[in-house]
């Protein structure tokens, strides 16, 4: 057995999976609270990735950064999360809110429209070519030369550690927020029964706005994580990532937050192992096979529960 290949794909799968998991969390949060598949969610991730790219450019570009790498990263994450979050709030306010009591097909089509709008706006403003974070070039490549070596001789760069550790940190913060804070509990209450939540005096509109902000901020962060580990950004990157994150959310059980994380990792690993062991041509097919298998064996997702209500 080729251990080097195995460990390489394992590391790649976990790194990719962390990014998918972060996007899937936002997908699942919005679905949980509005029962809306927010197809524009992947494009918020794209916008976050471009915000990060813009900041690298502002600070002198990859080859001649004018600031410390850690300061750069901090600014990138803050701006991408804030920008992504605000974009999510704007989309909710102007595209989805007035459709809240419309038949479910209307917001679904609208979500597709918002997605096309964002992709084409990015195409118009930023051009259709691939751009690169080029994180190998930052300050002599310290994010990649430093790191540690796993058994079987696989080198893991600091950049990959940042992606996985950062994603885990954000997931822990989200869990604490949803489990411990009043607003987080109000989110769970609203997602279970919106009218009953309103009957408690919970301002449902505010809770929905907060959900969009947090979910979209996670997508913005995921955009930067992806750029850091895989360099490339371009206007259509949100389509594939959004699709994979959606599959991840369904595989884990949509509306279920731990499920989104599990689903993200499953999809990331399925993708990288099929690239490593079968062919990159078939990796999409393998990912969809995982989805089909889960839907046949466990239609509610790995961690999802069928909605049983005691009356």
């Amino acid at each position, binding site marked *: 057995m080729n251990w080097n290949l195995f460990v390489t794909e394992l590391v790649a799968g976990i790194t990719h999976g962390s990014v998918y998991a972060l996007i899937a969390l936002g997908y699942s949060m919005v679905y949980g609270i509005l029962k809306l598949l927010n197809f524009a969610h992947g494009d918020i991730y794209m916008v976050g990735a471009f915000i990060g790219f813009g900041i690298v450019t502002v600070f002198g570009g990859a080859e001649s950064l004018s600031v410390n790498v850690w300061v750069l990263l901090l600014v990138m994450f803050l701006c991408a999360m804030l920008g992504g979050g605000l974009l999510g709030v704007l989309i909710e306010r102007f595209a989805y809110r007035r459709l809240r009591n419309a038949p479910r097909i209307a917001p679904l089509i609208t979500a597709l429209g918002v997605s096309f709008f964002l992709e084409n706006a990015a195409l118009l403003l930023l051009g259709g070519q691939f751009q690169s974070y080029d994180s190998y070039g930052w300050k002599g490549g310290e994010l990649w030369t430093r790191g540690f070596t796993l058994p079987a001789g696989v080198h893991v760069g600091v950049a990959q550690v940042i992606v996985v550790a950062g994603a885990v940190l954000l997931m822990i913060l989200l869990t604490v927020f949803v489990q411990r804070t*009043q607003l987080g*509990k*109000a989110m*769970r*209450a609203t997602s*279970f*029964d919106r*009218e*009953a*939540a*309103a*009957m*408690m*005096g*919970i*301002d449902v509109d505010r809770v929905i706005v907060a959900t969009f902000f947090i979910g979209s901020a996670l997508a913005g962060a995921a955009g930067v994580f992806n750029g850091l580990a895989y360099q490339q950004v371009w206007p259509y990157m949100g389509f594939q990532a959004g699709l994979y994150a959606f599959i991840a959310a369904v595989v884990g059980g949509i509306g279920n937050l731990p499920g989104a994380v599990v689903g993200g990792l499953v999809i990331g690993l399925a993708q990288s192992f099929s690239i490593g062991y079968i062919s990159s041509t078939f990796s999409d097919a393998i990912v969809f096979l995982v989805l089909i298998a889960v839907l046949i064996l466990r239609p509610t997702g790995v961690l999802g529960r069928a909605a049983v*209500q*005691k*009356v």
Partner: protein
Amino acid sequence: MTDEPLLSLESVDTYYGPIHILQGLNLNVRAGELVCLLGGNASGKSTTLKTVLGLVNPRNGTVRFGGEDVTKRSTSYRIRQGMAIVPENRRLFAPMTVLENLQMGAYLHAGGTKEDFDRVYELFPLLHERRAQLAGTLSGGEQQMVAMGRALMAKPKLLLMDEPSMGLAPILVERSFEIIKQVHESGVAMLIVEQNANVSLSIADRGYVLSTGRLVLEGKADDLREDEGLRKAYLGR
């Protein structure tokens, strides 16, 4: 003491789309009073509560609470001013714990103080025992306690109750109404919507009878119990 009622609906018309549900409804509840609202299916009882709480807005008419016109105010605002509801079918947050359900009841009071919890646990010692259990796993009677406890966490001046006896075994209905009486005696005004006219009139001060969105009868609870028409229509005797 002023004579102004705690809650009053003045010629309220409520519509669902084109359907005229409440038709010129006049109703009031004085501070500390227990009023029941009777009527059959689709008579507009639940809509009345939703109108009081601001979950639906009347097309015409005024809702006054604590002397203030709250017709245009949000549900949150009205709850902050001292309303709370025990909804039909209880509507607990099933995947959340009993404790979290109670905290949601006190959402506008930062999740409730220790005194609020003590007050509710004193009334329902079982809820303290079960506080870490998921609300959806409780029995119907226990869920009813959570729903009442949750409403009381908001320290309401006026407690709205929508069909508290629905889906409960007769013994639990009796127990439920004992608790309602007890809460009422602690000074909370109540507006109770019920199909079970007998048991609600037995503890109420006054009652209203609705039929297809119009008031057909109102009066002291004791008089209503003696009313021939009501008995024929609703008490089944």
